[in-house]
């Protein structure tokens, strides 16, 4: 009999996250009610809301590493993991074995093999896809997006960069600033990263020359003005030998700045200041567990919301006030950008997935058209007139590429006229959507200013982009419904069964048909009363009362509302349906 565990070798994996000191979590608040028990339809535990998750010292930094093929990116990451004790013994054993098999470093451990996980990558010795790595020090947890350097995989680099708060740009000290360095810097800048560490690597191969370091630094500073980075540091390192990664290197006595890890631990990355913005909440999900609760769930992408705030729902323009704000642990007085919340409103206005709830006084672009810069990621070229689905926030809308204003050369940063974009090219475009979209310039909001394009037939993600300007605003229904309507009008809305949907938008024909049906129903009631020989005088009274009162019964029983809030997504097509 074969034992299930006879073919034992040392485990072979790169589980690289643990082993170091966790993000400053000491054994505090283990108490508190089990949140699972509070799920029986009870809405809130107001006390629970104040419970802090961890001691506030623990922060998170997401960063990317980018560099050309052979700049030593994977080696640098492997080194960071190794130096922060994030590599386990079994992984070290696997690394030693792999170094013999695939290694490119001779006798030394090939740290790149810790991170290049796909077999094609190990065979070719390059990084193809974005890999995410995790480590932590006493002060901070880190998520690294290890992105490929090769131009063929620019899209993967851009993907990694879009989620990062800081970029490490690797430069080979022997080669200096290459066109790839310029390309990586441009993409980093395109997705709005402001904080950059330029790690000048392989200093060991240029004899730790200060002159060489300064030369490269000057070379990079020359291209800075076009990039908009506001926080740039230069660190001379050798990932392979470990110089200036964790501890200051004796080989570079002329360098007095922070080591790479010191910088990562202390940097407060400059990002968009979402807190200063007006409140914005893209609605992901309408939460309607019962008739008494109708909440709008999503993650806040700007500003702050508190009970009582006046809001407007876009693109419909319905206005209301915030009745309650619910965080992950129950009701809270207010919530801010970054938090996943559910809010309830005082009025039943029409809000569904894809809409954006914003502060009532916030100017927000609602338009069918916008211009932006996009990175084309598909094999086939992008041409004017192409039809795609644009996704911004939680909204998806069919859209057409109405103009292609030029391609940006990512090496020289110059714009040139173009009829088409090929894979990995960046272009300046205008898009026209079928329905109004809620968008903002990327510089104002990282969530409502970013988009992807999806091929409606293949469903591939074919482009990622950032909004530069939002086109002509769409007329948003200026005066809202419930809040501003008189008592009589509200009563009429109720009677018509339109209160729940936000009165104005129902079509007149539908309303007339409804009234005609109700008149017919009342006539029927009168007729039946006549048959059952009621006094002749009472028949019209009965019919009239039925006509007036019956609709309110529908409201009382909730029969005027639609049972299902989830609208069918108009962009969803079956295979071959084509839009």
């Amino acid at each position, binding site marked *: 009999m074969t034992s299930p565990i*006879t073919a034992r070798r040392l485990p072979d994996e790169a589980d690289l996250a643990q082993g170091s000191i966790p993000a400053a979590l000491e054994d505090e608040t283990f108490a508190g009610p089990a949140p699972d028990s509070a799920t029986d339809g009870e809405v809130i535990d107001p006390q629970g809301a104040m419970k802090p998750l961890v001691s506030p010292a623990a922060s998170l930094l997401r960063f990317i590493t980018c560099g050309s093929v052979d700049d030593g990116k994977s080696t640098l990451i492997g080194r960071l993991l190794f130096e922060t004790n994030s590599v386990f013994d079994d992984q070290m054993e696997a690394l030693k074995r792999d170094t013999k098999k695939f290694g490119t470093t001779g006798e030394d451990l090939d740290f790149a093999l810790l991170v290049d*996980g796909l077999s094609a990558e190990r065979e070719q010795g390059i990084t193809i896809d974005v890999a995410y790595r995790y480590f932590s020090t006493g002060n901070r947890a880190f998520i690294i997006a290890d992105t490929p350097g090769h131009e063929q995989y620019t899209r993967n680099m851009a993907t990694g960069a879009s989620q990062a708060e800081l970029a490490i740009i690797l430069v080979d000290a022997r080669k200096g600033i290459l066109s790839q360095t310029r390309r990586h810097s441009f993409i980093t800048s395109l997705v709005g990263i402001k904080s950059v560490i330029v790690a000048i690597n392989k200093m060991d191969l240029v004899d730790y020359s200060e002159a060489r370091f300064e030369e490269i630094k000057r070379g990079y500073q020359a291209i800075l003005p076009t990039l908009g980075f506001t926080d740039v540091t230069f660190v001379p390192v050798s990932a392979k030998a470990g110089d200036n990664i964790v501890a200051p290197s004796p080989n570079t006595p002329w360098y007095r700045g922070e080591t790479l890890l010191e910088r990562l631990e202390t940097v407060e990355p400059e990002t968009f200041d979402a807190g200063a913005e007006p409140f914005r909440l893209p609605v992901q999900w309408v939460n309607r567990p019962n008739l008494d609760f109708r909440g709008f769930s999503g993650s806040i992408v700007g500003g702050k919301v508190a009970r009582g705030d006046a809001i407007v729902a876009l693109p419909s323009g319905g206005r209301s006030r915030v009745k309650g704000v619910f965080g992950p642990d129950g009701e809270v007085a207010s919530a801010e950008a970054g938090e996943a919340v559910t809010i309830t409103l005082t009025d039943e206005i029409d809000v569904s997935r894809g809409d954006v709830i914003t502060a009532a006084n916030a100017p927000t672009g609602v338009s069918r058209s916008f211009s932006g810069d996009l990175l084309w990621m598909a094999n086939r070229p992008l041409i004017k007139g192409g039809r795609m689905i644009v996704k911004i926030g939680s909204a998806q809308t069919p859209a057409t590429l109405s103009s292609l204003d030029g391609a940006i050369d990512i090496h020289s940063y110059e714009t040139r006229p173009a009829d088409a974009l090929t894979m990995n090219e960046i272009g300046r475009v205008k898009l026209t959507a079928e329905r109004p979209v809620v968008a903002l310039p990327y510089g104002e909001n990282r969530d409502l200013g970013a988009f992807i394009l999806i091929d409606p037939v293949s469903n591939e993600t074919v482009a990622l982009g950032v909004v530069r300007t939002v086109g002509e605003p769409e007329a948003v229904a200026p005066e809202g419904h419930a809040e501003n309507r008189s008592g009589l009008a509200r009563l009429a809305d109720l009677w018509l069964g339109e209160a729940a949907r936000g009165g104005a938008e129902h079509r007149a024909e539908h309303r007339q048909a409804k009234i005609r049906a109700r008149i017919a129903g009342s006539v029927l009631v009168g007729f039946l009363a006549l048959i059952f020989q009621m006094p002749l005088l009472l028949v019209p009274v009965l019919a009239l009362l039925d006509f007036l009162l019956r609709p309110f019964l529908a409201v009382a029983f909730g029969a005027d509302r639609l049972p299902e809030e989830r609208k069918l997504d108009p962009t969803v097509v079956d295979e071959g349906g084509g839009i």
Partner: protein
Amino acid sequence: MKHMTHLQRLEAESIFIIREAAASAENPVMLYSIGKDSAVMLHLAMKAFKPGKPPFPLLHVDTTWKFREMIEFRDRRAKELGLDLIVHTNQEGVRAGINPFASGSRVHTDVMKTEALKQALDKYKFDMAFGGARRDEEKSRAKERVFSLRTPEHRWDAKNQRPEPWRLFNTRKKKGESFRVFPLSNWTEQDVWHYIAIENIPVVPLYFAAPRPIIRRDGALIMKDDDRMELKPGESVETMMVRFRTLGCYPLTGAVESSAASLDDIIGEMRSSRVSERQGRVIDQDSGASMEEKKQEGYF
């Protein structure tokens, strides 16, 4: 922006992912493996839809070789939370007599886990399945998407994955295709334990050290959970203080000697640990690309 701690940011991100998936799926399901990651994922799902319940059932693929305590825990949790629980076992595999001893870990896993999962997804026509996998678990998982598209045959194409910039997940699919969704993609083992401690999330007692009947086999400490495990010549059952870092089929899950009987102990132990959690998993230890191959074939 408000200062959010590391765990608060992870929590918010996971809730975002869960809501996004539920909103764009026709027939979602949550894969519930009973382990600590599943416990955290389920807890986050409960939070995401409060005061309602998650709009999807739980699915457990039962190989019939799970620890008995896991099964008890599973049934109790589903009942406590009032959630639908679907349990699926590959009956063909049972009839064919597949088991981890006679068939070997690889065949057992293929038939009773991978095949069984595909059967269940096909049977109920689930188009979006949440899984508790984390990117830090294994090298090929590090390159996994949050929304991972699978072909109608449930295959994963590592070279043809959709880019996921920002948090703009492309959830469109053709008929027959489905998604695996990983809300805990960016969590580490430490994060999971810290969160369990802070949020007071119930987990299977097997994670805590206790005296248990152990057989030493091929260098691993295997718990004799029932009589189906027979002693080989020279083996004996010892009572040892052990706990488990991951949970799976009991004959394939190695215990670690430990005295960590509380969450504090576990977190303390993890800080000084020098081996990765998957070391106890017998199935991962084949070739270097083992997990990658399994994933291509449809393993979660």
